[in-house]
C-alpha cells in the first residue's frame, strides 16, 4: 500500500510540476496587471505545436527546449503589446473578457491553420524509459519534468528577488502608479513579466505534449483553467502561492483518482472545480496568503 502511495505521489509531483510552471506565469501576470489571463493556457498550446514543428524539422531536442521558452515569451509579449496594453486602465471585468476573446482567437486561429486533428507527440526513446527506485518507478519524462521545473523555478525566483528587473516587477505589482512615479519603466516591466511567465508556459507545452503524447489546438483550455485554480489555492498574485498551489493541485488530482474507487475517477474535473468554488468562498485569499484583497 505504501508503495502504491509513493507511486501516486511521484505521479502527482510530475503533474504538479507542470501545473506549477504554468501557474507561476499566470500568477506573475495577475500580480502585475491584476488580469486573469485566460489566454495563458493557449500559450501552452502554442509552445507544444511550435515544439512539434521544430522536432519534425530536425532541430535537436536541447535546442527545441530553449526555443520553446523563446517562442512562449514571444507569444505572451505579443498578446500584451497588441491587446492588453491599449486596454490598461479598463475595468477588471473588461480585461477579463478581453483575455477570453484572445483565447478564443488563438484557439480558433490554430484550428483554422492546423485543423482540430490530434497529433502524436513523442519524446525520443530514452525519455520514455522507466527508472525505478525501491519499487517506485517513473518514466524519464516525469523525472525530466520534475527536475526541469525546479531549475526553471529557481531561475525565475532569482530574477524576481535578486535582480533590478525583478525589483521593478515587484514594485509595479505593489503599486503601478507609484512605481511609474519612481521612474520604473512600467510598460517595459509588464512586458518582461508577460515574457517570463509565458516562456514558462511555452516550455510547459513541450513537456505537456511529451507527457501525454498527444496535442491539439484546444489542449490549452485545461492547463489554463487548472493553473488558475492552482493560483487560487495558493493565493492569486503570489509566486510562492502559485508554486505550492500547483504542486498541491497536481497531488490532489492524482490522489483523488488513485485512492477513490474507479467509478469516481471521471469526476476528476468536477472535483477540481468544486474545490475552486469552495476555496473562493471559504478562504478567498488562498491557503498561504495573509494579504487580503477584496474578492468576495
Amino acid at each position, binding site marked *: 500500500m505504501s508503495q502504491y502511495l509513493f507511486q501516486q505521489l511521484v505521479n502527482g509531483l510530475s503533474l504538479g510540476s507542470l501545473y506549477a510552471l504554468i501557474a507561476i506565469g499566470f500568477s506573475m501576470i495577475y500580480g502585475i496587471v491584476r488580469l*486573469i489571463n485566460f489566454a495563458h493556457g493557449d500559450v501552452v498550446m502554442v509552445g507544444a505545436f511550435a515544439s512539434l514543428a521544430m522536432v519534425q524539422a530536425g532541430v535537436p531536442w536541447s535546442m527545441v527546449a530553449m526555443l520553446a521558452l523563446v517562442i512562449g515569451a514571444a507569444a505572451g509579449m505579443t498578446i500584451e503589446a497588441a*491587446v492588453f496594453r*491599449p*486596454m490598461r486602465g*479598463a475595468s*477588471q*471585468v*473588461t*480585461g*477579463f*473578457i*478581453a483575455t*477570453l*476573446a*484572445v483565447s*478564443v*482567437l488563438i*484557439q*480558433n*486561429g*490554430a*484550428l*483554422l491553420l492546423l*485543423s*482540430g486533428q490530434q497529433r502524436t507527440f513523442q519524446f525520443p526513446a530514452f525519455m520514455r524509459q522507466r527508472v525505478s527506485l525501491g519499487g517506485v518507478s517513473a518514466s524519464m519524462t516525469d523525472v525530466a519534468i520534475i527536475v526541469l521545473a525546479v531549475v526553471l523555478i529557481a531561475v525565475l525566483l532569482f530574477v524576481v528577488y535578486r535582480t533590478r528587473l525583478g525589483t521593478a516587477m515587484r514594485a509595479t505589482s505593489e503599486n503601478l502608479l507609484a512605481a511609474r512615479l519612481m521612474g520604473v519603466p512600467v510598460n517595459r516591466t509588464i512586458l518582461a513579466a508577460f515574457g517570463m511567465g509565458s516562456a514558462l508556459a511555452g516550455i510547459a507545452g513541450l513537456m505537456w505534449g511529451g507527457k501525454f503524447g498527444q496535442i491539439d489546438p484546444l489542449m490549452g*483550455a485545461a492547463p489554463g*483553467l487548472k493553473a*488558475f485554480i492552482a493560483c*487560487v489555492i495558493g493565493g492569486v498574485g503570489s509566486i510562492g502561492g502559485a508554486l505550492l498551489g500547483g504542486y498541491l493541485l497536481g497531488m490532489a488530482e492524482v490522489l483523488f483518482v488513485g485512492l477513490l474507487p474507479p467509478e469516481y475517477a*471521471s*469526476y476528476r*474535473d*468536477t472535483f477540481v*472545480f*468544486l474545490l*475552486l*468554488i469552495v476555496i*473562493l*468562498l471559504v478562504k*478567498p485569499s488562498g491557503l498561504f496568503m495573509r494579504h487580503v484583497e*477584496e*474578492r*468576495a
Partner: protein
Amino acid sequence: MSKNVPDALALPQARPLAGGLRLAALVALLLAALWLASSVLSAYGATLAALVCLNVALAVSLQLTNGLTGMFSLGHPAFMMIGAYVAAVLGYPVARKSTMLSGLPEALAAWQAPFVVAVALGAVAAGVAAWLIGLVVLRLKGHYLAVATLGLIVIVQGLALNWQGITRGGSGLSGIPRKTDIWWCAGLMIAVLVIVWRLKFSSLGRAMMATREDQLAAECIGVRTARVKLVAFVLGAVMAGIVGALMAHLITVVTPRSYGITLAFNLVVMVVIGGTGSITGAVIAAVAITLMGEGLKPLEEGMGLYGLSQMMVALALVLVLRFRPQGLFGSGEPGWLIRFFRPELSR
C-alpha cells in the same frame, strides 16, 4: 446610470393603456409577419429563425443578470443544460426510456411528460439550481464570480458526462421528439423581451441598476442587494432553462458538449457588444452574431476553414472593447423605442 431611466416623480399622469395597446399591436404585427414568413421559409429557414429567436431570448435574459445587475456570470449554459436534460428525460418516449435510461426511478420511467410540463419542470429545475448555487456563489464579485460560474459549467458537464443511467453519458440523448417549432421560440422570445423590458423600468429594475453602479450606495438607500442579485440570477437561469429545454426539442439531441464555454463566451459577447444593460443592443447583437455564424458555415465547411466565424466574433469583441467599451447602446435604449412603448413619458 443611463439618461434614459425616467424620473418617476416627473411622470405626467397619462393614459396607461396607450403603451400596452402599442405593444399588443407590435406583437400582433410580429406574429403576422412570422405567419407569412413560415409559409415561405424552407425547413432550414424556419429552424434558423427559431434559433435566432432562442438566441435573442438568451442574450436578453443574460442582460438581466450581467447587464442590469452587473454580475459577471458565465453560468448560462449550465442552466440551459439543466433545463435541457430535465425536459428531455421527462419528455422521452416511454418505450425508449426503459431501454436507454436504466437509472430512472420506476415512476418516471413509465411516464412521458407532456411537452409543456417537461419544459416547465426543466425551467423549475434550472431555477432551483440557480437559487441554491446563487446563495453561495453570488458573494463573489467581478472576475472571481466569472470563474466560479465557469466552474459551474464544467461541474454540470461533468455530471451529465458521468451520470450514465440518466444522461447516457458522452453520447447524450438523441431522438428527443421534435416538439419545438418557430412559434414556441418566437413566443418565448416575446415573453422574455416583455418581461425584461418591464423589469428594467420597474422599481426592481432600478434597484438592480443601483446595485450594479455602486453596491454600497445602493445598500445605504435601502436596496437589499443580496436579494436583488439572487432574484436577477434566478430569473435569468429560469429563462435559460426554458431556452435549453426548447432547444433540446428543436435540435432533438442533447450532449454534454452542446452547451459549453464557447456558448458562454458568445452570450457574453452579445451582451458586451450590444451594451451592458441595453435590451435593444442585445437583440441586435444576438441576431447579427447568430446570422453571421450560420452565414459563414458553408464557407467553413466548404473550404475547411473551421473556426472562422468564432474568430470573427472574438475579433469583433476585441475591437468593441478597445474602441467602444460601452457597447453599441451603452446601458440605455434608443429614445424612439422608449417613446413608442411609453408614450406617457413624452409630452
